[in-house]
């Protein structure tokens, strides 16, 4: 059984088909890259998977259970967490409090929530910033905070929406390292990324969408050599 199954999902915003009949699966333990030009419908797909938008048609199954129709907090509780492309830090809370708030989902008490949060901050390299009010964080660290917060909910599947965008070279390398460590912990990842070198190097498989449709799926090698993809995307 696949960890996640997207089954013929379509989403319309008025006249705009943001997703059209998309189907693919994610297997436990893999990193799946989701790529496509700007406005292709990648974020929309995340919003459907994690319950922010109901699909117009189709279904999403997580661990064999239909989750379309559930609320985001219920889906999170089942073990599916996400980050936001436009970061949403809890602005007037410290970095640590941001992560404690999410760690409460699996913690029995506050001491345990703090412990999970501290461990997560160390894991993501934010431990030195734990007392910073998150409004004052530079972008690179906000992106990391998004990841830390999602991780602290104890997910089995993590959806990362452009976690690398706007990072400088050293931040980029750190984040790639973090993603690899997350995978090593047995957490499955679906990642949206425009940075081709990165996505090709970390993904086990890649799904390409364009104008709301899936145009290709395969290993990085197959995607690189797919004429449709080259035309729609890589050729630019």
């Amino acid at each position, binding site marked *: 059984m696949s960890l996640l199954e997207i089954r013929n999902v379509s989403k319309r915003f008025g006249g705009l088909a943001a997703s059209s009949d998309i189907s693919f699966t994610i297997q436990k333990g893999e990193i799946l890259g989701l790529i496509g030009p700007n406005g292709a419908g990648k974020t929309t797909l995340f919003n459907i998977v*994690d319950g*922010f938008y109901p699909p117009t048609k189709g279904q999403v199954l997580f661990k064999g259970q239909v989750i379309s129709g559930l*609320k*985001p*907090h*219920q889906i*999170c*509780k089942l073990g599916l*967490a*996400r980050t*936001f492309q436009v970061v*949403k*830090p*809890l*602005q*007037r*809370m410290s970095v640590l*409090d941001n992560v*404690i*708030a*999410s760690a*409460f*989902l699996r913690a029995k008490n*506050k001491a345990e*929530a703090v412990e999970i949060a501290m461990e997560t901050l160390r894991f993501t390299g934010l431990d030195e910033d734990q007392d910073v009010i998150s409004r004052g964080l530079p972008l690179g660290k906000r992106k990391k905070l998004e990841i830390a*917060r*999602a991780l602290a*909910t104890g997910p089995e599947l993590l959806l990362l929406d452009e976690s690398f965008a706007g990072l400088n070279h050293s931040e980029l390398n750190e984040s790639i390292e973090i993603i690899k460590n997350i995978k090593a912990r047995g957490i499955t990842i679906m990642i949206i990324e425009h940075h081709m070198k990165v996505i090709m190097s970390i993904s086990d498989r890649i799904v390409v969408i364009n104008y709301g449709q899936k145009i290709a799926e395969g290993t990085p090698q197959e995607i690189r050599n797919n004429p449709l993809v080259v035309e729609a995307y890589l050729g630019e």
Partner: protein
Amino acid sequence: MKKYLPLIVLILLAVMPLAGLAGLLSSYILHMIILVIMWSVVGMAWNLLAGYCGQVSFGHAAFFGVGAYTAGILHSHLNLSPWWGIPASIVVVGLFSLLLGLIVLRLRGPFFALATLAMGEVMRISSENLDWLTGGNLGITLQRTWVDKTNYYYIILAIAVAAFLVVKYLMRSKIGYYFVAIREDQDAAESLGINTTLYKTIALCISGALTGVAGAFYTNYMGYIEPSVVFALHDISIVAIMTVMVGGVATFFGPFVGAIIMVLLAEVVRSIPYLGAAHLTFFGILLILIIIFLPNGIVGDFQKIKRIFGAGGAGK
């Protein structure tokens, strides 16, 4: 020192009526202090919902009034002591808040605020017209239990201390983290597994019930209630907001400081002759000044205030 400040204040408050016995404290001053403490309770309640959980209400008079009428009606219809209104209002206003929440908590931001504003007015007009239940515009009059104010003082002080401890305890626990997370970003909170609807409802119910208790106390203390007083938009809903804004939104002591200032201001303004309804102008001006100069209120911007006065003191 700072750690013991609340304790010292509490001890002072506890022994204060002894000064009254010694004739140092007039009944009028004790009355002012009782009002300050009562408004602190309303302020703490509003602060919990709006300051911490981010759901700004313009209709807390609805809760205050339902609490006040719970006490009044228990007396006028069931011949019970209106003091039963205090425990009863926790249940009645709690349930009322729950119902209200089902309607208004679907709305966000300004839409929520407008819906609560409407709710306050709906309750006022309903209570004016439900003569059989509320006595309509004639209101409800009851015999006060004591002539002396000391007992009322201790009762409202106990309520305030309980409210303070409840708020403090909640804000340290998971619920508090969830409230603030919802205030900061509802979508982010939802994605972190927080049932935002549930926790907003909890905030509304606790806030409503606390305000209702203050209302029930008011009935007992004043011995008379009428719709235009206990469901008042300006004198209850707006004053609740101002108490917290002036004192400091999302601070533990803001509601106390704000209550002192609001009660004093109302008294001063009332003593100016021929002012009538124009006293609201003063509230408006104060609010504008606060928003411009102390957006975090007196407690929230205390460091800033100290700096300004410190600089002045240095003769610059």
